[in-house]
């Protein structure tokens, strides 16, 4: 059994020690009350090891200067980011200063001037590292491979050294800029804070923007059913807010359903790209992150996609897994599900001829010539349905190519696309001239 971590300590220094506040001799504190966390919100970024923590606590203040001690031993909190502000009566309460005692690491003391006496809600924010999240997806196709279920998940990992109970969790999709790693700042310990109002780094500003929330968004309710994950866009980022509250103990991880899509239609495309996928055709499931495909409510964060097929015998076949990139709304989704033993491609160079020689130098020697290559390419489809095959070949040099149905993908890549019927052996021929030596004037394919 592991005892949960409670590393954060929040200590209200009572009036007997107010006189010491100016020097913030924390070692002398001996009368304290520890206000509990009333709520906590985690905004977790997946592009950096960065989490913005917002917690609310109620402090009992008295008129005058109050010293509030805050410590975070054995955590990965960036000390430069720890801030406190009142959530109410802020016209009567002012944070005078923050002191980091030199003899106590991972520790600070705020001096708060209050014109009132009584309980006030405060918000403490800071950055921590050690909390991360990732997305993953599970796809299960029907036996006929025309529709699939498409389930998205998010998994949250807590290795921060602190446990956050009943936390509202928000997950940010997007790439933020950091000029210093939070983990490094946490390891380095206390460093001078920027002057109040002084510009913080570009990265910090961006983080603040990404994490902006209103108090209304702070909900603290336990989910009795699978929590819905609410998605919203913000600037260049996308925020997933998990409804209800989550407790993720230190060193635990937790996986939640992000969305479920059913009856998602998809197409199958076979690709042969020796330069990219190897010498055999590779099968792709093609769909879009849009409404037509029962998706499209949010971008899909990069993550691992595991694809299965219902084998029609009350079981699954594992087709494969791949890491996908971030997929914006309306963007294509291409899933490589690997080789298919029932679709065979064969390419044969049937002849080579040389012609159009050019001579130069004294005595004259061959300096330029053309080589004419003839090819036969065949696709054999042993499946019970038509397959669409897209073939790309990169051909370097100055090429003139003659073939029906050929199109240029780019300057040195030719592409053929065919539908091959069930049990059909489909062959096509093409020929190209490669200009060599001084005959080569370009570096491109020209279709004749």
């Amino acid at each position: 059994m592991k005892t949960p971590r409670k590393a954060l300590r929040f200590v209200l220094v009572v009036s007997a020690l107010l006189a010491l506040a100016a020097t913030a001799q924390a070692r002398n504190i001996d009368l304290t009350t520890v206000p509990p966390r009333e709520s906590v919100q985690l905004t977790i970024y997946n592009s950096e090891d960065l989490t913005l923590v917002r917690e609310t606590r109620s402090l009992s203040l008295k008129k005058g200067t109050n010293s509030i001690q805050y410590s975070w031993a054995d955590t990965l909190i960036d000390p430069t980011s720890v801030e406190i502000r009142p959530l109410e009566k802020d016209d009567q309460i002012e944070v005078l200063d923050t002191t980091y005692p030199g003899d106590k690491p991972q520790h600070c003391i705020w001096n708060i001037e209050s014109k009132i006496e009584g309980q006030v809600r405060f918000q403490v924010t800071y950055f921590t590292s050690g909390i991360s999240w990732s997305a993953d997806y599970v796809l299960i196709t029907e036996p006929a491979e025309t529709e699939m279920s498409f389930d998205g998940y998010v998994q949250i990992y807590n290795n921060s050294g602190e446990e956050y109970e009943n936390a509202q969790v928000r997950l940010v999709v997007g790439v933020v800029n950091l000029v210093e790693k939070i983990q490094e700042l946490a390891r380095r310990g206390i460093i001078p804070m920027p002057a109040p109002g002084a510009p913080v780094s570009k990265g910090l500003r961006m983080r603040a923007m990404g994490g902006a929330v209103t108090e209304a968004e702070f909900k603290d309710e336990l989910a009795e059913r699978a929590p819905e994950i609410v998605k919203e866009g913000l600037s260049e980022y996308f925020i997933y807010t998990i409804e209800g509250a989550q407790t993720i103990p230190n060193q635990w991880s937790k996986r939640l359903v992000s969305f479920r899509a059913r009856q998602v239609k998809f197409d199958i495309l076979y690709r042969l790209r020796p330069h990219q996928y190897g010498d055999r055709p590779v099968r792709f499931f093609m769909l879009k992150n849009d409404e037509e495909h029962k998706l499209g409510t949010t971008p899909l964060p990069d993550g691992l996609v595991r694809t299965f097929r219902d084998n029609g015998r009350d079981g699954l076949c594992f087709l494969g897994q791949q890491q996908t990139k971030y997929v914006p709304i309306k963007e294509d989704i291409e899933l490589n599900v690997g080789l298919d033993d029932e679709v065979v491609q064969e390419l044969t160079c049937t002849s080579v001829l040389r012609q159009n020689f050019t001579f130069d130098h004294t005595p004259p020697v061959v300096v330029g010539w053309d080589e004419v290559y003839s090819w036969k390419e065949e696709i054999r489809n042993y499946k019970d349905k038509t397959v669409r095959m897209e073939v790309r070949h990169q051909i370097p040099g100055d090429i003139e190519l003659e073939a029906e149905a050929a199109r240029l993908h780019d300057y040195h890549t030719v592409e053929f696309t065919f539908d091959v019927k069930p049990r059909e052996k489909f062959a096509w021929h093409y020929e190209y001239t490669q200009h060599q030596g001084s005959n080569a004037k370009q570096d491109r394919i020209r279709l004749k």
Partner: protein
Amino acid sequence: MMKSTGRIAFVPVVCAVLLLLGGSQVAYARIKLTTLPVRERVEIQLDNPNATLVEEERIVTLLEGTNHIDFSWSNTAIDKGTILFRVVDMPVRAKTKDDHPSVVRPDGNVEMIQVINVAYPPGENALVWEVFAEKPFAARVRISYLIQNLRRSFDYRAVAEHDESTLVLRKYIRLDNFSGEEFGASGIWAGFGNYFHREVGMNEAKQMLSWKFQDVPIKKTYTFDWWTGQQVPDEPEQRYVEMRYVLTNDKQHNMGEFPLQFGKVRIFQKDGRGGEAFIGEDWGQFTPIDDEMELYLGLARDVVVKRKISQNLRERVQHNLHHQDVVLQYTIENFKTDPVVLDIREDVWRLRDELCGGKDRAPELEIVREGTSLGADQIERKDSRTVEFHIPLEAAPKGEGKVEPLVATVHLYLRNEW
């Protein structure tokens, strides 16, 4: 109780851990009050060559409300991220106005059992599903996961008739279970061939007959390849002739049911007296339908071939451009008592490099009729760099008759070299 070794444990955990993730300090005690549901069904899916998928079904008693189901394993390499929990025959009800749209299925129903989340405790091979049930159910659930060290391979056993006209090819699937878990009676499927239902014990290898092909015609080939053939000691002009069985994976040859996966092929021949003799083995390469599986059996020492280049002339075309005028001469003796067809394979690229120096460019081959003793139907251009000559050889004369060598010549141009 569960039949397994206990290495994979499946535990619905009752109320003592309802607070498991609730935040209490005692919540993480991982107290388990357990009733272990037996495995009702296990399927081992071996169709993916890179990963083995295990599916098991158990009946789990769910209470109304939130349930925690603990799944743990030890000494077993399960890919934690691949574990799926699915309810078979999911109970559903009609949607109501209180249901959030996200939980309504396309058919308008709402599933009455939902997996809320999965929690992964630190330092353990375990996970805890939090499952919500609208009312008590005895739910049949299917857990699937990828597991390591539960591997498949394929073996073939071919028994040729005494006259080597046909053979019987048996394809076996071999299952090696070093996963650290035993699976009891399990369905086993490898994508093609038969479906099996077998006990799979721990550290056990099991070989099962996946398919049997009867009366598969054998094409027996004798191949002379100057460039890849084994040298004959003290005979610089010779290479050993290699003998192969070639099996065509199509219906015409009583196969063609499915692609043949890579595996070792052991070949036996009936000895005509009720027994079998082992005549060789080879790795059978992956063979799609309609392709040929070539099985190298060994050397055919009774077919002797000498090769020499009897002419090597440079014919100038213009300036330094020339054709290389080459005559290859093969002297062939068949000491076998059966007639055979000899295939002589030439790698034109390597021939050109030998005679004209190594080049980056492909050779341009022309076979010249004049000076070539073979008919056009005996010459096969396999591709731009490979040519094969098919030469039928008579059986060696019986008695004291002498084997007369057959001399075959091929006249070729390696065109446009410099």
